Structures are given as structure tokens and as C-alpha cells.
């Protein structure tokens, strides 16, 4: 979802039940360079998704966090459907709470084809409808 209430992408398949979107990333010079190539800068960096990472939330008074090592394994995948034209910036830095090395990822792009909507929350359904009306 974008900050203007539109759908950016939908997760249509994932071999993992959890991808972290709470704990951000450390400042990353290479990511900033990639942003710069497209006219973006530090001010455009907001919260990122840490695909394949899990930081568990405890049911305690502060919702304490603990990094879960070995959450993902070689061969795990996540598949996104772009709901509008997107630029996606990917950095394979290790998770900020991990003491392990970074691992590479393979990124595959498939040409657009019709993909049925998965079961979505009401908010997501509205966002998709508005987005489709805008780009139609």
C-alpha cells in the first residue's frame, strides 16, 4: 500500500508465513547510489520490507522483539504482483539484527498476466479498486 492509499503490489505467493516490516535497515551506501540513479535521495527512504527475515513479537507489555535466526532457507520464495508500474530497490544486506553473512537472492520478472486476487482485507480491496480505476 502506498502513502496515498493506493495498491503498489500484492503478495500472491510466499513459502514463508512471515516477512519483517518493522525493523528497517541500516544506512546503506549502495542502496543510496541506486536511488540516486533514479533521482531519489535519502529523504525518499522510508520503512522497508525485510523479505525472508523474522523478528518475533512477544506478548509482553512492551511487545519485545527477538530476531529469529534460520527463519528462511535456500529455495524460499516470495512472489509479488505489481498493481501499478513500480521501481523496486533491492539490497541484500544482512538483517540489522543478524550476525550472519548476507546471502544473494535471485530476482525473476515475468511478463504481466492475469492473477486472481488472493483473499484480502476490506482496506486492500478498496485500494485495489481505486488503483485500477486510476490506471485504467
Amino acid at each position, binding site marked *: 500500500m502506498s*502513502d*496515498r492509499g493506493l495498491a503498489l503490489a500484492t503478495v500472491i505467493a510466499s513459502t514463508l508465513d512471515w516477512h519483517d516490516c*518493522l525493523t528497517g535497515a541500516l544506512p546503506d551506501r549502495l542502496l543510496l547510489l541506486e536511488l540516486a540513479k533514479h533521482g531519489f*535521495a535519502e529523504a525518499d527512504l522510508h520503512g522497508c520490507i525485510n523479505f525472508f527475515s523474522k523478528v518475533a513479537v512477544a*506478548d509482553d507489555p512492551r511487545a519485545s*522483539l527477538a530476531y529469529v535466526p534460520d527463519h528462511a532457507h535456500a529455495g524460499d520464495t516470495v512472489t509479488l504482483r505489481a498493481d501499478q508500474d513500480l521501481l523496486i530497490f533491492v539490497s541484500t544486506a544482512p538483517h540489522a539484527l543478524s550476525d550472519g553473512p548476507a546471502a544473494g537472492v535471485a530476482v525473476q520478472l515475468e511478463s504481466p498476466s492475469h492473477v486472481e486476487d488472493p483473499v484480502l482485507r476490506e482496506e486492500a480491496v478498496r485500494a485495489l479498486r481505486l488503483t485500477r480505476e486510476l490506471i485504467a
Partner: protein
Amino acid sequence: MTITATTVALDSVVEAGDGALVSVPAGGRLRIVDLHGNQAVDTLFYDAHDIDNRYSAFDTIREQRAVFLTTGSRLISTRLDELAVITDDTCGRHDTVGGACSQESNVIRYGEFTRHQHACRQTFLRYGAQAGIGQRQLTHNINFFMNVPVTSTGGLTFEDGLSAPGKYVEVTASRDLFALISNCPQVNNPCNGWDPTPIQLLGWW
């Protein structure tokens, strides 16, 4: 508590749905008082000398290894600087993942009829403009006094508040700061007890 020789530099009431841009010098203490209870106060912090060095919810959450903010929480910037520390808190916990309402998010959450209701995004833009803070600089904010339980299964809901009349939270600036505040006008969920009310800002520096 040690009382140091400071003067009351700020004492003002922010009406429901209004906002403020407050310049807080390093060492200054800013207190936000929930005058009537259950009022979400959407707040962003910026390094006053470089607004691109701004509050980062994600770096703050990661560095303290906990989602909720309370006394002792260090408010960390995108460059991993400490902007401020929460030094007093009679409410108990504060949210920083629920975000600020906008006209656009209201439409997808609650329906088309909310499109022209006032929202925190408008207040942030109005008061931020005088410091050069615009759309690009609006990032994930703190919701003081707001209750957004996050569960071990990844659930997140906006619930009725934990706050009460007279509860307050106080931050001490670690460097010269702008505090950009929107006293949330939201009436479509219980974050303001369905009834937005005024807050008081007190500052000592």
C-alpha cells in the same frame, strides 16, 4: 528528580484537529499533556539543522528491541543519531507503527464519505511548511497516547486508549529539534475515543 534552572518556555493548548511546530533546543524538555484523555497526538521529530536527519520509527524499534515507546525509549534518527529520549511518561506506552491518518488512508479504511474529512497529513503539511518539511519528509510518526496492540501472531488493531485526563509524556531533546505535532482529528476509529479533544504543550529550556 533534579530541578535545574530552566524557565517555562512554552505553555499552549492545541485544539483538537490543530497542530504545532515547536523548536526545542538541545537539553530542552517538551511535555505533552492529554487534557481530556484518549487523545492521539501524532508527532514527528527532525534535526533542526538538517531535516533529512529525522525520526525513524523502524530504527527506534530495532535499537530498543521493542515495539512500544515509554520512559527510557531513545528516539533514533534515520542516520542512527539520538534525537531525544522519553524521560517521563504517566500513560505507560505509546504507538509508533499505526501511522498518521490522511484523506487517502481514510478513504480506503472507512470509505469514500471520509475523503474530505480533516486528517493529520494536512496538519503536518500546514505546520511543517515553515521549516521546509514537505511530503517527502513526512515519515512514520509517533502516536503519543494511542493504543495499537501488536501481537505475537502479527496482528495489529487500533483500540480504545490507555490514557486518561491529565496523563502526560515528556521528551528531552538530545540535539536541537523540530517537533511537528498533529492533534489527531480522526473520528472513524477509537484512537481518540471517538471524540478528539485539546492537548497542552509545556516546554522548559
